């Protein structure tokens, strides 16, 4: 497999991944909304087991990038390669099955369904049901249902949510809902998980726990994590590679240390120094 783009010199692929092909690559990705360019020229490469961050001021186009990666928005320009395969022309559900999962900035659980069922919806993925199969599904129903239950409970206990399994998802406290959303996304067995502001609304101890969880997810499931986050201490401590977006364009890429000292990033966040 030849690489679509030569990796940028300041690659955000960490060294231990460098010999592998990136799990997710975008090449000059861009989207216009009625003549307005929201995102342009976004070229990224994310390693197979890398935790990376997408940061930038409000309105920089971070969530728009997530929406393009999951094919919710069709990019106007550029390509996305997931595990070496283009996602262009695929449906949202197909892209999800190719191995990309996400959570939402404003939690979007299936509130009326039980916590367990929320995760089981995620498991839906690996069963290719035809119309006929769903009718004949009654046969052997118990066995597959038991397996699904066990697997769903495994994901729940990973996030300490197993005790809530039979409660309605909408009745969970906020922090638990955020964890459940990650559990549900993981149940689709993704190769990369996109987290949209996972620490939003969390207190420092919850944030610390979340960071621990994200590391645990990567280590246990050997997948990549790409997160959007405004909590800079989380991003700088957790992410191995960071990409900074401003006005829809990538203004910097690199390790946390490189990003911290990058004058363009400081300018984007704090504004330009007044010239005397």
């Amino acid at each position, binding site marked *: 497999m030849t690489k679509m783009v030569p990796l940028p010199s300041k690659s955000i692929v960490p060294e231990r991944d460098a010999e592998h092909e990136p799990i997710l690559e975008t090449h000059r990705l861009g989207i216009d909304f009625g003549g307005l360019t929201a995102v342009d020229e976004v070229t990224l490469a994310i390693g197979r087991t890398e935790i990376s961050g997408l940061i930038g001021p409000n309105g920089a186009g971070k969530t728009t990038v997530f929406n393009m990666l*999951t094919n*919710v928005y069709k990019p106007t320009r550029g390509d996305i390669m997931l595990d070496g395969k283009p996602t262009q022309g695929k*449906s*949202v*559900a197909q892209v*999800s*099955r190719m191995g990309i*999962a*996400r959570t*939402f900035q404003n939690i*979007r*659980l*299936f*509130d*009326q*369904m039980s916590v367990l*069922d929320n995760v*089981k*919806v*995620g498991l*839906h*993925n690996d*069963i290719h*049901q035809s*119309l006929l199969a*769903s009718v004949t*599904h009654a046969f052997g*129903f118990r066995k597959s*249902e038991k397996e*699904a239950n066990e697997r769903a409970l495994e994901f729940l206990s990973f996030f300490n949510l197993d005790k809530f399994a039979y409660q309605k998802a909408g009745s969970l406290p906020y922090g638990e809902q955020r964890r459940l959303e990650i559990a*549900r*996304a993981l149940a*689709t067995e993704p190769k990369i998980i996109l987290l949209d502001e996972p620490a939003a609304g969390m207190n420092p101890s919850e944030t610390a726990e979340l960071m621990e969880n994200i590391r645990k997810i990567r280590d246990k499931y050997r997948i990549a994590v790409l997160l959007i986050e405004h909590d800079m201490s989380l991003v700088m401590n957790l992410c191995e590679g960071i990409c900074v977006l401003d006005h829809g364009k990538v203004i910097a890429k690199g390790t946390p240390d490189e990003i911290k000292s990058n004058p363009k990033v400081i300018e984007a966040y704090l504004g330009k120094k007044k010239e005397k």
Partner: protein
Amino acid sequence: MNLLTNLINGIGLGSVYAIIALGYTMVYGIAKMLNFAHGDVIMVGAYMCFCATTYLNLPVPAAILIAMVVCTVLGVLIEGLAYKPLRRAGSLAVLITAIGVSYFLQNMALLIWGSAPKTFTSVVPFGAVSLFGGELIISWETIITVLANIVIMIGLALFTKMSRTGKAMRAVSEDKDAAELMGINVNKTISITFAIGSALAAIAGVLLCSSYPVLMPTTGSMPGIKAFTAAVFGGIGSIPGAMLGGLLLGIIEIFAKSYISTQLSDAIVFGVLIVVLLVKPTGLLGKKIAEKV
């Protein structure tokens, strides 16, 4: 005894409304659209059963099966050809299309079977049960209808609760986009919903025409509208709501017919709907719709 007879007849008619209302409510819950052609699918189901027994001399179970298969295919076709291309269009466009499909089906039936009413032979070969020395007479059609309704309700409740497809349906009805991002094929889920709703419409058509044996191209339209009313009455999108709404509507209709006025009965039925919606706009068991602020 008269009261009891009316109550039982009301439950019988209400069970038919409930089965039809399920089709409306499931489709609304999942595709967020009102399928006004649903009533006419009932008519097609009844005609299919009629043709299979009258012209092909098939036994009743086979005739019902044929009606269900034809209606299932019809439902999936209607969805695929008429509604699917409008998935991203406004809800008004879909509504008008549904009304168009309704007229299309009625006129196709007119073309094929003519306008003269056909006498539907009841699929129930028994007479009636006479209780208390002939004071209380219950027709077997009513008994079978009520039993069918109960079986369908339990079956559907288990299906949506337990099966994977049922879970997918609930997920799609709550958040279509999130469900899609979980890898659920939303289009297929909607197709399955139409298939189930249409198969139920076939059963409803056969049961309706067994109790009220006049079959013509417009047979489905009034029960369709009343079942839609029942679905709204019970809270559209809610399966127990469709059940409750259908039963109440049937009982109110029969009581209005026997105690107030036959001519006024429909006016009373819709009057009750208006009152309920004024007091509780989401219907009896409807979910509160949280407004995003």
